[in-house]
């Protein structure tokens, strides 16, 4: 074995760096699943980037004025309507869920099955709440006459982008909730005692990504 592993004499500069990095059996010292999740997330980033770039593009090309989001996404609780209040709560919920997920990862590595299970379930519950509020938002807009092909407030692309981008993100959240519940169930049954608890972190990576994507959707679609 030593013959195979010691032959790479360390060199300086670029050549040395490439040599060092490529010399091991693994390029990254992480489990296979984690490496795969990272690469998948980069690929998924391209999908959401394309959606957002497409959105920015049609917002420029459309001939009608863009509807005023802060008025459309306003809710009133008895008094004056508060702009973007629902979206703010949704964002808060989703970011909180990232916090509980991070705690779940921590307790997972400590092999505290009860706490891990509880925290993943909390995360999933926050996720489900988010999807529920999104469903409320969709039905509110649909009741106001917003459709993918047109709306009473201005550019038809507003509705198209809204349903497409939030829908695609909502599918990611829904999928994430199912994935988390599945992991939680297996944690509870002790399935990972032999395999190791990296899977909690891998599921967490996905969850944080979905969260991060929402931040961009929030910034580009609701605020811009």
């Amino acid at each position, binding site marked *: 074995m030593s013959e195979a592993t010691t032959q790479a004499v360390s060199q300086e500069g670029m050549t040395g760096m490439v040599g060092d990095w490529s010399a091991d059996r*693994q390029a990254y010292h992480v489990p*296979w699943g984690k490496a795969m999740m990272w690469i998948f997330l980069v690929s998924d980033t391209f999908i959401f980037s394309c959606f957002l770039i*497409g959105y920015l593009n049609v917002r420029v090309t459309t001939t009608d004025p863009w509807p005023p989001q802060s008025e459309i996404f306003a809710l009133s609780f008895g008094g004056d309507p508060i702009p973007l209040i629902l979206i703010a709560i949704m964002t808060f919920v989703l970011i909180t869920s990232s916090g509980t997920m991070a705690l779940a990862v921590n307790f997972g590595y400590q092999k505290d099955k009860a706490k891990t299970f509880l925290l993943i379930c909390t995360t999933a519950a926050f996720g489900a709440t988010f999807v529920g509020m999104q469903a409320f938002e969709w039905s509110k807009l649909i009741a106001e006459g917003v459709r993918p092909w047109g709306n009473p407030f201005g550019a038809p*692309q507003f509705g198209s982008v809204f349903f497409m981008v939030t829908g695609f993100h909502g599918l990611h959240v829904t999928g994430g909730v199912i994935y988390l519940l599945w992991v939680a169930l297996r944690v509870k049954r002790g399935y990972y005692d032999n395999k190791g608890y990296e899977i909690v972190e891998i599921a967490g990576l996905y969850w944080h990504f979905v969260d991060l994507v929402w931040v961009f959707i929030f910034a580009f679609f609701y605020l811009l």
Partner: protein
Amino acid sequence: MAYVPLADQDQDMEMHHPHSWVEKYVWSQDHKVIAIQYGGLAVLTGIVGLVLSLLFRMQLGFPESVNFVDPNFYYQAVTMHGMIMVVYFLTALFLGGFGNYMVPLMLGARDMVFPFLNMMSVWTFLISVIILMASFFVGGGPTGAGWTLYPPQTTMAGTPGHDAGIILMLVSLAVFVVAFTMGGLNYVVTILQYRCRGMTLMRMPLTIWGIFVATVLGLFAFPALLVACIMMMFDTVLGTSFFMPAVLESGTPLDYEGGSPILFQHLFWFFGHPEVYIVALPAFGLVSDVLSVHARKNIFGYRMMVWAIIAIGGLSFIVWAHHMYVSGMNPYFGFFFATTTLIIAVPTALKVYNWLLTLWEGDIRLNAPMYFAIGFIFTFIHGGLTGLFLGNVVIDLPLSDTYFVVAHFHLVMGVSPILVLFAALYHWYPKISGRMYNETMAKVHFWFTFLGAYAIYLPMHYLGFLGVPRRYYALGNTDFIPLSAQDLNSSITIAALIVGASQILFFINIIGSLKWGKKADPNPWGAASLEWQTPDTPPVHGNWGENLPTVYRWAYDYSVPGAAEDFIPQNVPESEAAAAQDAKSPESNGE
């Protein structure tokens, strides 16, 4: 149990052992079976694409006497031919077929890292092919919008298949992207994380490098296609206006406004250009290995070959708009994309020089794979040179949408990768099947294919210079096109029919040799890379028997002075190789 680095683990991964015939050959998780399923399905789809091309070529060659091709079917055939060949044939065969077969074997692994996901990939691919083929049987037929599917004409009445055909095409592409992602993640993670001892990245055969970079390109480029498909689907089904501007149809305005057809072009070509290299890079890798083995020389400039593959892969993401010079973009934009496009010629030319220098003073063995590999160098140089014309904005504008473009991309990304496919299939056939193919028949097949390809595509350059536009059903009486252009078209069609028919030789050869071919040696070409060193031929489930191999050298130790044979396999340690040399040297001293 916490995570343990691979180097400190016991050797074996958990294997899924099949229990029945169905689990072994149908719902198989073995990468080799999956590779053959992927490859076989891709070839079957490719045959459909080939037949379609012959049908519309007959219309072009003999417009008066051919009456079974009407204008609608002509457009549908052209469209489906393009899409099938690029996506469902070449991409699937190189990455799904060769990627699956070669990656674990060449890396000394037992299988892909996630065999179940790998199996899902091939079955999802089957679904996408079924959806695609279903479009031939729906009302209105498959889409006839051209393989680029440019809106707004794609979804407007008058374009054949504007109703059901286009929807099936978009769904099929989206499903294909899912299938590719599942397979692609597997290839990338296997290459990065699951190599045998001693197999450093810089000792991997170039085949693996080509497949690796191509897969990374696929993972980052296919998202743009997926998004474009989703948006166009919304435009078609829901009546949104992502890609549709305000537009008239037969004088009446449609319910669209404010969309951007150019946005589709950007998304499509952001996928479409890397797609060219998704097809080309595995071909570069495979041909490098074939050339090196049959020239009995190490590949010239291995490290530079690797860097060239990486550089081409990186550059391919910033050249997409050279497909859109005629879309009316800002001249500075065109300038930028022309510059990046021409810069790609540098690493590409480097690769061509290195192939030629690999042949230089080599001990060339003219086996059938070598015929095809050398043929590839010819067609690739010719196709590449016309790329220099088309990469320049001013020269591209008059040549755009003429047969010059058709000739260019068919030579460079149609014929060239297909010649490599044949080279690779003949080269690895003994390992995959355990039998030898018929050498004479393979060489006859080569001459038909190679000369035929030139007979088809060289005249097309001339048609392009005359200004003959592509995708026209018939030329008719047009002032600027001389009547002789039609004669050229007829001769192209005849050549195409002969080349198409000659492919039967290939199928007779590889299918017949399964039964009648003589039993192959484990390593008939004397190749040094790992896949030829398996204990069984063809390799069995798990690939390596008891112990995984250990690698001590790169894959290109050919014509080594004093070696026992003229090559040293990757898994032979220094000590053994030196011992073999010592054993040989007394004789040579005595002389």
